[in-house]
């Protein structure tokens, strides 16, 4: 992925998340890494050997790092392949993705992790990482080969959407992973309360006659997870926190000094339960969309730094899985190509500063996983996104590069056009015209 020609970006609005700098800047890329960064519009005299890209004031930021991406490879290639996901990522300004282990077969052994990483290497677009399953077959019973998967390159351990019901099993996973210094992600949802639910329990869901689960199902499981993280001393990642109630518990645990981080999905930051409207299955998600008050609390938590990481929760589902009655439809939404614009919406609304939004999808996840990307500093990999943060457009899901078009942003007015994406110094996406 190494490009030989040296490239300079000048006249940029540089958004550097590590130092939280947002201002004029220029940057040089040489041999796949960032060679130099200045906080003025250009370098003055540049050798004519250097290719110069005039950013015209567009935002230059680290390429996004999305640590929660599902594809259908291996096992369900009609939904999404690694290649189509990489293309979608590049188009969305995402330069690193972490593939979730709920593939078929599940990525619960080093061979499957290795398969995913090797397949991705051949594609050579964006950086592809993998997460390994916590339990065999994601069944929540017997521990998977955590050590061997980490050795094969797994970034963290998770059973993805399936909570580990048996507290003893999760305790052992946390304890064992701690021995390797590994991070364990867990979705907080009491399965007894949330089994079979298609929506969040509310007056609205009741009126629609939808099977629903109360929002406390999240808090109940989170409290257990936090207690287990406390006694094991393991690193816990709360997967997709969504509600005010749970945020309050997270805040308390952090104050107590627990080594716990949390992600929020762009969907839960962008939509609420009423978006389901007339049974629109593109808004059927796991966890289900919450009340507007919970969405507001989540945005506040992001702004305050309580929730540090935003993910797309990219979950491709083809039409045949979505064009069904609501309770039969597959949950999930594609998000690689809308993550950046979704984040920018919170900037345009004045809710969260631009640099903090970028940080939540670059430096924060890089820091969590120990990646060198996600910052604009000399020596960091040249993973960059150049974006006109104001450019308006109406999203047409059919124009997405993902094989599946299940975007809840379909038909929405968005702002933020990706002009260029660079991964490892190579241009992997460039806007037409």
């Amino acid at each position, binding site marked *: 992925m190494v490009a030989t020609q040296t490239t300079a970006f000048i006249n940029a609005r540089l958004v550097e998340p590590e130092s939280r700098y947002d201002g004029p800047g220029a940057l040089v890329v040489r041999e796949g890494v960032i060679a130099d960064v200045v906080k003025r519009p250009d370098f003055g005299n540049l050798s004519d050997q250097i290719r110069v890209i005039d950013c015209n004031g567009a935002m230059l930021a680290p390429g996004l790092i999305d640590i929660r991406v599902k594809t259908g490879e291996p096992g369900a290639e009609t939904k999404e392949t690694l290649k189509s996901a990489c293309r979608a990522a590049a188009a969305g300004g995402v330069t690193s993705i972490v593939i979730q282990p709920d593939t078929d077969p599940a990525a619960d052994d080093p061979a499957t992790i290795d398969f995913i990483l090797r397949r991705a290497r051949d594609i050579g677009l964006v950086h592809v990482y993998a997460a390994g399953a916590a339990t065999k077959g994601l069944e929540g019973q017997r521990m998977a080969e955590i050590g061997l998967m980490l050795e094969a390159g797994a970034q963290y351990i998770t059973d993805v959407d399936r909570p580990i019901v048996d507290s003893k099993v999760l305790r052992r996973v946390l304890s064992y992973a701690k021995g390797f210094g590994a991070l364990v992600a867990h979705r907080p949802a009491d399965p007894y309360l949330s089994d079979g639910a298609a929506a969040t329990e*509310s*007056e609205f869901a*009741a009126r629609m*006659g*939808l099977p629903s689960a109360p929002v406390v199902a999240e808090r109940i499981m989170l409290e257990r997870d936090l207690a287990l993280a406390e006694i094991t001393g393991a690193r816990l990642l709360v997967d997709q926190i969504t509600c005010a109630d749970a945020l309050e518990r997270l805040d308390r645990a952090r104050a107590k000094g627990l080594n716990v981080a949390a992600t929020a999905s762009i969907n839960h930051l962008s939509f609420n339960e009423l978006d389901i409207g007339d*049974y629109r299955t593109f808004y059927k998600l796991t966890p289900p969309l919450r009340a507007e008050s919970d969405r507001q609390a989540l945005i506040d938590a992001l702004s305050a730094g309580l929730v540090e990481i935003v993910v797309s929760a990219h979950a491709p589902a083809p039409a045949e899985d979505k064009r*069904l009655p609501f*309770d039969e439809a597959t949950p999930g939404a594609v998000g690689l190509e809308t993550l950046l614009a979704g984040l920018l919406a919170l900037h345009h609304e004045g809710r969260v500063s631009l640099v903090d939004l970028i940080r939540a999808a670059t430096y924060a996840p890089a820091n969590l996983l120990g990646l060198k990307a996600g910052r604009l500093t000399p020596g960091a990999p040249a993973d960059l996104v150049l974006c006109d943060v104001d450019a308006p457009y109406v999203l047409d899901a059919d124009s997405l590069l993902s094989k599946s078009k299940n975007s809840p942003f379909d038909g929405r007015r968005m702002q933020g056009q990706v002009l260029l994406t660079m991964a490892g110094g190579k241009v992997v996406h460039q806007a037409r015209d």
Partner: protein
Amino acid sequence: MTNQAVGIDDVRARTYAFPAPHFISINDINRPQALRLLDLAEGFVDLNRKTAKKHDLLKGRTMMNLFFENSTRTQSSFELAGKRLGADVVNMSARQSSMAKGETLIDTAVTLNAMRPDLLVVRHASSGAASLLAQKVGCSVINAGDGQHEHPTQALLDALSIRYAFGKVEGLTVAICGDVMHSRVARSNVLLLTMLGAQVRLVGPPTLMPTGADRWGVSVHHDMRKGIAGVDVVMMLRLQLERMQGALVPSTREYFRFFGLDREKLASAAPGAKVMHPGPMNRGVEIDSDVADDPLVSLIQNQVEMGVAVRMALLAALAARLDER
């Protein structure tokens, strides 16, 4: 209600174009439109009591009954309504259909749609199924029950039954009792009866009450005697047997003790109160036979009669809309 004999010409004159392309929810109509539909249905009640019941308002029209859930009452009611108006009626049930072979709801609907029916009557176990179909087909879709969402023609026939018994709906108090949570009949009735100016109470154990039902413009009661005190109509709902025996209520006998309708509990309703049930009844579970079979208090047989008339009115109005095109 009119005392003069109503003939088909009177009914024809009353027929009007339905305001919406489909009838999925009570929310598709407003109060004057609901009243107009009930007026039209009254005409059909009279016509149905005559020997010559067959008319030609739907002549040349094709109606398909697509029932993914078993139903005797509703399906035959729609079938009879269509046939009495002269439509060609085709019945499809889930077991005969290719749904059993794994075809999706939409594929089935699109296939049937290609046969160019004019009216598609749908019942499905999932909330929102009728709405989904309506987005994908070119004919008029009538919701004959979608999951736990709505059953709008049932609400209309209930309103018509109440109007026949009391001469009005406005100002009456109606208690809807039992498994409100899982009941599409209750949801449609809450919408329609409150729209028509009735006061509605929901009565049942908290485990069978939907979240936030107190914000539906109704009052919620967990004590049946208090809940039906002074009401004009007691509408009982069917309790699915699998939901008893410890799941949502401890046992059949405990349910009957606290929420089953018998003479003793009915005594706390207003004098002359009427009893309704959408059927099929679980006798001795939610309702005592003694009450259900008493023609002085029970409107249950009237409901069935009104069902055919209401569906004829709806079909005639939808067909009139099609004729306008």
